[in-house]
C-alpha cells in the first residue's frame, strides 16, 4: 500500500490534518481568533470554514482565557476541540485554563475524566514581530505534568503528529515555528499518524550529536553539511516531542558519538536543552562522554526588533557549526 506523496508546505500539511480530522470525526471542531474567513493569522486554516462551516470552524472573540476555558469545558463533555492561539506569546493570557485546569483535571478528579484538547500556536522569532510576538515558551509547557508538548519540524511530521494529537485523549500543546510555515516537504495523502513520543534521527553521523528543536533542526542540518566538508560528521536529532522527551534515542546517539550539543531557540537558561543535558549526565551515556555537554539557546533578553539584533538573539547556523566543530576537535 503506497499513498500518493506530494510536496506540501508545513501550513498546508496542518490544514490537511485538520480537514481529515474533521471529516473523520464530527466531534472535532476548531476555535480561534480569525481562523474563519480570514483564514488564520498564518493562513493555516485557509478555506476550511468554507468547506466545514462556521459551526466547525469557530471565530472566537479576542478572549484567550475564555476561549481556552471553553475548549476545556467542551473537551470534558464529549467534544474534541482544536484551539488556536494566534501567537504563543498569548498563551500567557490563557495560562490559568491550560495549566491549572486542562493539565490537572484528570489527576485531581482521580482519573474520572479526560481532557482531549489540542492547543496549537505559532512560536519563535525571525519575522520582526519583536518581543511580545516572538517568544519560544516551549519549556514552560514541557514543565507541566498532565500536558503533552510537541514541536514538529517537517510537513510530514506536522500532519502526522497533529492527527495523532487530535486522537489523543490528553491535552496536547503543539508549537509551530513561524519560519517553517512556508517550508516544503513530502506529505502522503490520506491518513497516517506520527507517534507523539519519539525523536527522529534526521542525519546519521559519528563525531558529534546535535539535538535541535524547532527551526534549529534545519539550521543544524545546514551546519552538518558545512561540517562534513571538514570531515566532521554530525548526527542531527529532531526531538519532535518535548514532553515526553525521547531520551532513549538521544542516549543511544551520545553513546555512539561521545559528544553532545543541544540547540534550541528558547532562552538558554532553564530551557529544553538544560533538561536534555542533565538527563544525559544522569544516564548510561555519561560514561561515554568525551567532552562537556554544550548548549546553544536564546539570549538572556527579550527578542529585539532590529534585524541584526533579532538574529543575534537566537542561535544561527554559523554558531552551530562553530560549537560542533570545537566539540569534535576536543577544544571544549
Amino acid at each position, binding site marked *: 500500500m503506497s499513498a500518493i506523496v506530494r510536496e506540501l508546505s508545513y501550513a498546508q500539511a496542518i490544514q490537511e490534518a485538520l480537514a481529515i480530522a474533521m471529516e473523520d470525526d464530527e466531534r472535532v471542531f476548531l476555535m480561534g481568533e480569525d481562523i474563519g474567513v480570514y483564514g488564520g493569522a498564518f493562513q493555516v486554516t485557509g478555506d476550511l470554514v468554507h468547506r466545514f462551516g462556521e459551526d466547525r470552524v469557530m471565530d472566537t472573540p479576542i478572549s484567550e482565557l475564555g476561549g481556552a476555558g471553553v475548549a476545556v469545558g467542551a473537551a470534558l463533555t464529549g467534544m474534541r476541540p482544536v484551539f488556536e492561539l494566534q501567537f504563543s506569546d498569548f498563551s500567557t493570557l490563557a495560562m490559568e485554563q491550560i495549566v491549572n485546569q486542562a493539565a490537572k483535571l484528570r489527576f485531581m478528579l482521580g482519573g474520572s475524566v479526560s481532557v482531549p484538547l489540542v492547543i496549537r500556536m505559532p512560536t519563535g522569532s525571525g519575522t520582526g514581530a519583536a518581543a511580545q510576538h516572538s517568544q519560544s515558551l516551549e519549556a514552560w509547557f514541557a514543565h507541566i505534568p498532565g500536558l503533552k508538548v510537541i514541536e514538529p519540524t517537517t510537513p510530514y511530521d506536522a500532519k502526522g503528529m497533529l492527527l495523532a494529537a487530535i486522537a489523543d485523549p490528553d491535552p496536547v500543546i503543539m508549537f509551530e515555528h513561524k519560519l517553517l510555515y512556508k517550508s516544503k516537504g513530502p506529505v502522503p495523502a490520506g491518513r497516517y499518524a506520527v507517534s507523539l513520543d519519539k525523536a527522529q534521527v534526521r542525519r*546519521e553521523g*559519528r563525531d558529534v550529536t546535535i539535538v535541535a528543536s524547532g527551526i534549529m533542526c534545519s539550521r543544524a542540518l545546514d551546519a552538518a553539511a*558545512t561540517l562534513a566538508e571538514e570531515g566532521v560528521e554530525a548526527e542531527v536529532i529532531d526531538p519532535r516531542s518535548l514532553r515526553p522527551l525521547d531520551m532513549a534515542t538521544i542516549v543511544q546517539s551520545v553513546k555512539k558519538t561521545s559528544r553532545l550539543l543541544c540547540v534550541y531557540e528558547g532562552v538558554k537558561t532553564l530551557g529544553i536543552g538544560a533538561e536534555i543535558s542533565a538527563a544525559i549526565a544522569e544516564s548510561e551515556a555519561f560514561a561515554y562522554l568525551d567532552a562537556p555537554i554544550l548548549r546553544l539557546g536564546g539570549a538572556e533578553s527579550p527578542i529585539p526588533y532590529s534585524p541584526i539584533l533579532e538574529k543575534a538573539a537566537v542561535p544561527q547556523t554559523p554558531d552551530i557549526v562553530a560549537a560542533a566543530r570545537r566539540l569534535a576537535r576536543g*577544544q571544549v
Partner: protein
Amino acid sequence: MAVEVILPRVDMDMETGKINHWFVAEGEAVVKGMPLFEIETDKAAMEIEAPADGILRGVSVKIGETLPVGAVVGWICARDEIFEAPVPGAVAEKPPAPPQAAPEALQSSGAGANGDLRATPKARRWAREQAIDLSSISGTGPDGRIQAKDVAPNRAGLTSPPPPRGALHGEWLARGAGTPIVFVHGFGADLNGWRPLHGYLSAGRGHFALDLPGHGQSDLMGPATLEAFVESVEATLVAEGVTSAHIVGHSLGGAVAAAYAAARPVRVRSLTLLAPAGLGPEFNGAFATGFLAAQGDASLAAWLRQLAVDEAALGAAMVKATLARRAERPHVEAQTKIAASLFPDGAQAFSVRTQLASYGGPLRVVFGLEDRILPAAQTRGLPGAVALHLLPNIGHMPHFEARAVTAEIIEDNVAAGDRRAAARSG
C-alpha cells in the same frame, strides 16, 4: 451530656497552639457562640466560641501551655449534670500515615576518586576497561584533560570500537526498512563521497556505505587484490547483519561490486555500476600517479578537477573534505600499493567482464561520455541484458555531476531487483 471543648485547628499548617486567655471561668455559665477563650498561633490570636450552652467545667490546661490541635481543654455540662473529669485521651488521632514508597537506590558513582586528575567519563571508562593507569597518561584536551584518544590512540576512528576482524569501516547513511543499498566508492575516495547522492534517493530504505581497504577509516590489512577486497566486503556485510543487498559501486568500487556480485549472486538483488573499472586496460594512469604524488592542496585539487567535466559539480565542499581527510589519514602508502597492484604502468590489470556476464541479476552501468579517467568506449561489448546509460557531458563522477538522473537509475534498478526477488519467492 457533656460537650467537649477542644483546641481547634484554625490555620492550614497549624499543629499546636496555646490558650492566651479564658473569657469564662470554671463553673460559669456559657451560651453557644459566645467567646470562650483566645488561642495563639504562629499567625495571630483568635477568639474561639463556645460550642454549646451550659456550665464550663473540667478546665484542664494552663495559660500558655503548648497543646496539640484537637486536645480537649474543657467541658460544657448541663446545669444539673454531675461532672466527672473523663479519662484524658481525647486528642484526635492522626490518620495513619500512608505507607512510604522506598526511595529509589541512588546510582553508585563511578570508579573511585582520582584526585585532581582531569579526564572525561569516556577516558575513565576506557582506562578502567583496559586496566590503564590514568595518571600515567598526559591529556591533550583543554587544561590538560585526558580524552578518550589519549587513552587508546590506536583505536580506529576514535569514537567507535574497532570493527570485527576482517570487516571494513562503514556507516549507515540512513536506516530503514527492506533490503538496503550498499555503496562502494572508488580509488582515492571514501564513503563520504556518497552523501550528495544519498540525499537524492528516496527515504525509507537503509543505505550503508563502506570504506575500501586503505581508504577512509579502513586500513589495508591484507593483499591489494580484487579477491581480497571482495572478502573484506563480505566480512563487512556479515558483521552488519546484511544478508541481502542492492549494490552500487563507483570506479574501482564498481569493479569490486561486480566481483562480489558474481561471487555471491544470491545476496545481491541488483547491481548498479557507475563508471566501473575493469572493463578494459585503458586507464588515465597519470591521474593516479599525480593524485598520489601531490603534496599540496593546490596540486591535489588540480588532479581532482580531472574527475568531472564541470568542476563546480564536485562542489568546493567535496574537494575541501577530501583534502582535509587526506591531511588526517593520508593512506598514501596503502593507496600506492593498491595502484601498483591494480593499475601497474598506467593500465588496468584486471577485468570484471566475466563477472558481469555471470551475475544474472538486474544490472545497469552508467558512464559519462566525457570521462577522462576511464574511457566510455570500454562499455562496448557488454552482455545484452546489461542496461547501459551513457550520459553526455558527464565525466567520471555521475553521482556528483548528474545526481538526479543517477538516483533515478539506481531507484529503477533497485525496484527491479525487489520485484524479481518477490516473484521468485512468491
